[in-house]
């Protein structure tokens, strides 16, 4: 007898996988916010390029930044980058080895909270320095 193998494992397609679960949708959204970080880096690079091209080019760049369209774009960037920062520190406890403080393991909430606090302080310090320089 040469019986045919009755096994026919069925592999389900992965098309549209990220829409199947709210967790995956959020993952795609927070990964996509990285594009906004890249966009802001591009804005800064263009500024550097215009600065290298001389005073007129630099002033043109500053004027462009003051347009309502540019201000609106920067508000969108700020929101997206803040969300990116938040999700970054939410996942941080999953990436670190156990950290012992006084014989106890640091909790995930303490790691996330610590990261967010450092990010907020660093942003404030940078803002203060730039504010001081601009005055």
């Amino acid at each position, binding site marked *: 007898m040469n019986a045919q193998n009755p096994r026919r494992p069925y592999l389900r397609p992965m098309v549209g*996988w990220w829409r*199947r679960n709210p967790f995956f949708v959020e993952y795609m959204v927070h990964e996509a916010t990285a594009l906004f970080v890249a966009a802001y880096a591009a804005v800064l690079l263009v500024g550097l390029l215009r600065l290298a091209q001389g005073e007129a080019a630099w002033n043109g760049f500053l004027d462009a930044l003051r347009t309502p369209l540019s201000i609106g774009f920067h508000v969108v960037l700020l929101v997206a980058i803040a969300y990116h920062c938040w999700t970054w520190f939410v996942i941080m406890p999953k990436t670190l080895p156990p950290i012992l403080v006084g014989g106890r393991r640091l909790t995930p909430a303490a790691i996330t909270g610590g990261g967010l606090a450092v990010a907020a302080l660093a942003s404030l310090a940078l803002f203060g320095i730039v504010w001081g320089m601009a005055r």
Partner: protein
Amino acid sequence: MADIAETRKRIEIEVLRYRPEQDTEPFLQTYELPFTDDMSVLQGLQYIKDELDGSLSFRWSCRMAICGSCGMMIDGKPRLSCKTFLRDYYPGRVRVEALAHFPIERDLVIVIDDFIDKLESIKPYIIPKTPRTLAEGEYLQTPAERDVYEQFSSCINCLLCYAACPQYGLNPEFVGPGIMALLHRYNVDSRDGGAAQRMEVVNAEEGVFNCTAVGYCSEVCPKHVDPANAVNQNKTLSAKDYFLRFVRPKGDCR
């Protein structure tokens, strides 16, 4: 406890069926059955098999979340069906499918060969640093040394983390979360000396760096193992292995 014969509550269970000898692809079949508040989804499936349709196939054993056999997609989420209750889906219906990302053998039964092969490849047992005779006694370990790996030793091989990992679904070559948790469990055990052998799996093309930190594996784990933590700790260890190999040769890449 209300007797199932007297209960008036009824629920619909929608099951993804696949019978390889007659179906070209899976299809949904709905069963309506009486249930009591203490019935798990697994008990609902057992009712279907006993009373409504004996041809339904699914895996189960312990009924108390320790054997790891009854993992299924329940309303789209990877869960142990013995630890999920029908009352939480009432009124309404609950959809039960085979664990995502694995080939379906039949109905709710998946093909787990890939996981078993990977499990063997990581040598999931303690490889002593130096051979030791019985006369030398047991290996001693402090509570602090045990604390480093204990959480990872809770894995019951239920595969929910694989069904939660889109990277594994997209590329089944990826070693995956559960195996990395078990590998890490042995690598960081103070009694073990096999880390260099296991790092070959970590450092490989299909090793830890296939992970994009979705993190859903740790959310669905019924034993709070946190496989995402094991994977991501080993990204650091793998990078260290790579950059320190000139200074301190050890480990290899498959």
